[in-house]
């Protein structure tokens, strides 16, 4: 629900976005200027060919593109511009396992695999690009305020453990005193918490930059302001028409975030993702105090403390709202009363890319083999899986059977009985 001023359109979020976009940019001027800058092939009859085209330069696209380039494929990554929605710019930074996949043990398994691959990816990126992504895996805590929350959480953790089968699910429910031993200055309102050793956090923007740097260093081609308008598809033969020219490849990956809903059908794929807004507050830098992240409060390596979050169904509106900001601040202060005095120096709202059941959608086109769609709201947590596990599958031409449960076929309405 958004507040509109007098006389605005019925879909203020969209009009606001369009107004923002067109007030500050001119597509044609940008494209020719970029051509001058030597970024792209000149428009014309020539269609540049690659081994793989990844549409989308956020955390999902960049991780996959990096994996493909690392595997030796000549890869093109097409991206939108500065004013696009860019879920990756709004990410909180958790590499989070404990909440994932209740009732869907395959998701918990996939997430655990990614979390286990993460340290290796972080080290590799540091080694190859010199960029530190500040990954830490000290375990993580989900704070519960009140008995009801605590009981709820305990039941949920127990269900996760039961569903985990051979994989196991190591968690502990901590009471107030145990939480106080782990985290300094916990408030009296904190009844307890769930803890697992699997959780951690990282710097999402450093990750994005490192993946981009690593991609380019491995010979990848990156073109921003290249929104994809149209495509022609045939088995292992795709032709993409973008604002920056036309390109062809035997493999195409739709990793365009919210844009995937419109993009995937071009390749015979279905990606019914919708926006879910989240708001985040960030405090001034402080000397280090929090030894591990919680689901809604974490301290970055620079010392800022990030406070989240919200789950709002408001369409494509990236506006901030005082009631949500207040709710975030209130819960933060209840959790750690000493947060009161810290100044909030910035905040934002961003749109998560949310599949209908919250689980990733990984799919390959049956109509046009060689086309894939990749969708999730946990671009940081799953970055390692995307780079190290998914990209090799895409390079080889088909997804493992282990990912079948992530196919969009699960949304198909069954025939009436």
């Amino acid at each position, binding site marked *: 629900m958004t507040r509109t001023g007098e006389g605005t359109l019925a879909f203020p979020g969209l009009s606001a976005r369009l107004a923002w976009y067109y007030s500050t940019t001119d597509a044609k001027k940008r494209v020719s200027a970029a051509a001058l800058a030597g970024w792209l092939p000149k428009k014309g009859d020539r269609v540049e060919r690659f081994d793989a085209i990844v549409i989308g330069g956020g955390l999902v696209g960049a991780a996959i593109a990096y994996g493909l380039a690392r595997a030796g494929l000549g890869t093109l990554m097409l991206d939108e511009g500065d004013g696009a929605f860019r879920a990756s710019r709004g990410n909180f930074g958790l590499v989070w396992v404990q909440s994932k996949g209740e009732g869907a043990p395959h998701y918990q398994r996939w997430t655990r695999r990614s979390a286990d691959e993460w340290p290796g990816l972080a080290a590799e990126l540091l080694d190859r690009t010199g960029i530190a992504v500040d990954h830490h895996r000290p375990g993580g805590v989900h704070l519960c305020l009140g008995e009801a929350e605590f009981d709820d959480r305990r039941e949920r953790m127990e269900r996760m453990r039961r569903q985990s089968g051979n994989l196991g699910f190591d968690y502990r429910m901590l009471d107030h005193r145990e939480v106080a031993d782990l985290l*300094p200055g916990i408030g009296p309102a904190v009844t307890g918490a769930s803890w697992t050793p699997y959780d951690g956090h990282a710097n999402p923007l450093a990750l994005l930059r490192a993946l981009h740097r690593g991609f380019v260093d491995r010979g990848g081609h990156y073109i921003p302001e290249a929104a994809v308008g149209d495509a022609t598809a045939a088995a292992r033969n795709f032709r993409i028409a973008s604002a920056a020219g036309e390109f062809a490849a035997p493999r195409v990956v739709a990793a365009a975030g919210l844009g995937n809903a419109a993009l995937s059908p071009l390749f015979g794929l279905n990606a019914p993702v919708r926006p879910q807004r989240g708001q985040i507050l960030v405090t001034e830098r402080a000397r280090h105090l929090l030894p591990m992240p919680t689901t809604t409060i974490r301290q970055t390596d620079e010392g800022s403390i990030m406070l989240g979050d919200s789950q709002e169904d408001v369409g494509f509106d990236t506006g901030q709202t005082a009631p949500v900001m207040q709710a975030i601040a209130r819960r933060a202060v209840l959790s750690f009363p000493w947060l009161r005095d810290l100044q909030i120096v910035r905040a934002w709202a961003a749109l998560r890319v949310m599949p209908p059941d919250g689980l990733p959608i990984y799919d390959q086109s049956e109509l046009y083999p060689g086309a894939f769609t990749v969708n999730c709201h946990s671009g940081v947590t799953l970055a390692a899986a995307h780079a190290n596990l998914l990209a090799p599958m895409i390079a080889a031409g088909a997804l493992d059977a282990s990912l079948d449960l992530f196919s969009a076929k699960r949304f198909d309405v069954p025939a009436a009985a």
Partner: protein
Amino acid sequence: MFRLRRNGGPASVAVVVEGALVHVVPGASAAAAVLAAGFASIRETPVTGAGRAPYCMMGVCYDCLAEIDGIPNQQSCMVETRASMRIRRQLGARQLDPPNQHNE
């Protein structure tokens, strides 16, 4: 270094800057008091520890951050001095002192 202008003043407001008494005219900001006290820099950045002094004096640059009456990281150019205000330079990121949870 800054000094009172010719025919300026009277500097009738007494504040304490880094433990020393400083006099400023009514209406002067805390940042002005630090400059009047003779300090070259008012803070050390949390990023590299570099010394900084106020750059804009109008609330835009945030280089005037100082600790005022015990509260760190305030825009001292936006805070009007009051008698016996205690001003200290802001050295790096703020220190946090959460209360001890156990009854010790």
